[in-house]
């Protein structure tokens, strides 16, 4: 049986705004678009519990929020600060949790399975954690403790704000039964009327029906819903691959002014790092370029991309970054390519189009050849945009 914590920061954006401006404490505060006296567009990103008393909630159109609560304090939001406080919470939790998953800017899952000897009663430990986050960071939070992620998440949500809910292992089904069916994560505006139409109002209504029925009536989603209603859920956290980046750099013996020579270097470096990423079975979600001029002025530029291990995609991104970054007519001393934000590679056939499928097979073959004959045994060519001719920079 696993012990999963779900920690949710209560009205997080509002809590941070209150640190920045304590005059907001105790008042209805709405973070989101400018309401422009009821004419504004956009939605509520977060609102304080005082504002919720007027019927406001996240994702409500700001115009509607203004009608319900015209005297509320509307703030645009300090997103850089939210990220900093979110990182600060993560860093505090990381000191205790053997495994930590950041689910969003204000939610964390932690796996404390087997930690009872170290931390004592899990309920008391959660209280301690909650208190520490309040004392050190002035942020209120709620914690749910359950045997899987779904139960823990429902737990953290049911006693907000500043709540702690411990769902005793084996009692998940009983705990969930009286709750309204929309409490289950994933039941939204589309599904709810369908469930109601069929007479499912509480989670207990769902769990007492048969799995087969739900499969037949709602398909795959129905089975997943039925399982959640029965207290089942994901027991393991998705944690990112530990290594933070893979990089390769080249410092020229003599500083270089020729753009095509720099492009060749970048292609070579890209090939090297992409192969390392493929060797690990990872995909990179971030590509970075480093450029140092001969006078030591150094730039680094990066771009977030759809996770990939393909040289072609990475090289295109690198070239784009390079052409934007290389703006001075000064010789270059060093170039570097770095890949980061790794995901482990999961086969998701349906997501790939046919052309990509072919490239994927080709890359696999390249990896195989390099395994057998070494890295230098096969290299990618490059299309020269001027001559529209394939050139292999490494073979002259």
């Amino acid at each position: 049986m696993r012990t999963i914590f779900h920690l949710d920061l209560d009205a997080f954006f509002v809590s941070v705004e209150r640190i920045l401006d304590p005059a907001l404490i105790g008042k209805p505060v709405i973070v989101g678009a400018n309401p422009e006296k009821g004419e504004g567009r956009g939605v509520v990103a977060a609102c304080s519990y005082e504002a919720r008393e007027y019927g406001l909630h996240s994702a409500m159109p700001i115009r509607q929020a203004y009608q319900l609560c015209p005297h509320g304090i509307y703030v645009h939001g300090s997103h850089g600060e939210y990220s900093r406080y979110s990182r600060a919470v993560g860093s505090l939790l990381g000191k205790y949790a053997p495994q930590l998953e950041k689910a969003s800017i204000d939610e964390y899952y932690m796996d404390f399975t087997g930690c009872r000897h170290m931390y004592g009663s899990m309920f008391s430990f959660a209280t301690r954690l909650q208190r520490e986050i309040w004392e050190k960071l002035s942020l209120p939070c709620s914690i749910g403790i359950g045997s899987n992620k779904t139960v823990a998440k429902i737990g953290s949500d049911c006693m907000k704000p500043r709540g702690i809910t411990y769902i005793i292992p084996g009692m998940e089904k009983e705990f969930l039964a009286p709750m309204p069916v929309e409490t289950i994560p994933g039941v939204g505006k589309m599904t709810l009327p369908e469930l109601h139409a069929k007479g499912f109002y509480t989670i207990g209504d769902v769990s007492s029906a048969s799995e087969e029925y739900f499969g037949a009536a709602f398909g795959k989603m129905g089975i997943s819903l039925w399982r959640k209603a029965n207290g089942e859920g994901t027991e393991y956290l998705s944690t990112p691959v530990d290594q933070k980046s893979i990089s390769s750099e080249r410092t020229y013996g003599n500083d270089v002014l020729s753009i095509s020579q720099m492009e060749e270097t970048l292609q070579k470096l890209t090939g090297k790092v992409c192969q390392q990423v493929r060797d690990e079975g990872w995909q990179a979600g971030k590509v970075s370029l480093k450029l140092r001029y001969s006078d030591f002025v150094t730039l680094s530029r990066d771009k977030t991309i759809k996770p990939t291990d393909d040289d072609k995609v990475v090289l295109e991104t690198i070239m784009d970054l390079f052409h934007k970054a290389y703006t001075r007519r000064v010789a270059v001393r060093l170039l570097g390519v770095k890949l980061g934000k790794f995901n482990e590679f999961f086969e998701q056939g349906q997501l790939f189009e046919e052309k990509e499928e072919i490239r994927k097979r080709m890359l696999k073959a390249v990896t195989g050849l390099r395994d057998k004959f070494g890295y230098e045994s096969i290299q990618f060519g490059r299309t020269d945009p001027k001559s529209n001719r394939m050139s292999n920079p490494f073979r002259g």
Partner: protein
Amino acid sequence: MNYAPKLYIGTAGWSYKDWVPNFYPSGESKEFSWLEFYSRYFNVVEVNSSYYTYINPNIIKGWLKKVEDAEEFLFTFKLHQDFTHKRYYGNDQVNAIRYNLDMLKEAERLGGILIQFPYSFDCCEPNIEYVGELIRNFDGYDKFVEVRHASWNNKRAKSITFCTIDQPQIGQAIEFVPVVGNGCAYIRFHGRNEEAWKRSISNYGKIQTYEEQNQRYQYLYSPGELTEINQKIREIYDKVKKVFVIMNNHPHGDAVANAFELMHLLKEKVKVKMPQTILKEYPRLKQISSN
């Protein structure tokens, strides 16, 4: 909290006209001493004028008198540019500096010397040897060495403390991680004014006004940034006996405000003694003020 090192928190320099009236009160008589006022609130100051000039020992005597009432107060002393940038000095220069340092040391007011090298000073054999020579010349004082070239990254030192720098994350600047050496950390905050920093790089060597020169230091750290900084400094608490925190984002007194805030965070959120003047310009300090 199990263990906390001795914390020395202050600013780089104290003599700034634009700290009136945000920190120093306005309309004071000629006898009013900025240093004496400063020493009521902070326990360290970094002397920067010593980088440009060999300070007359009488001036140092005057400083010692001004801080007489401050129970614990230290000066850290930036080494003259002859030693770090021009790298041309003789025994006379060493002796002149040592004379001043000894005066501070005997009065138990010396925190150490800050040896700040230019960016071009990279990690190679002759430079390592040069640092070794300086260390021998200034034996007997704690030494904080600031090297900015990336080739020094991850170099560990036992007998000296490499400085930790916080500045805008541009180019090859590394993420803020406190460095420990000789049981101590010496952390300097230059602000994170990215735009002005970039401008100052491109205006390097041009004649600039005082305002232009100092624009890149104009930056008030936000509560979120200070919270992260606090966490990172705390991570080294069990590895050090002393931590120096020096704020150099001096324009208009931002350094003073942030120094008070870090004092609050690093000292278990105790209320901090501060003058009324600063509360007017930085109302968010009211939360942490003991007034």
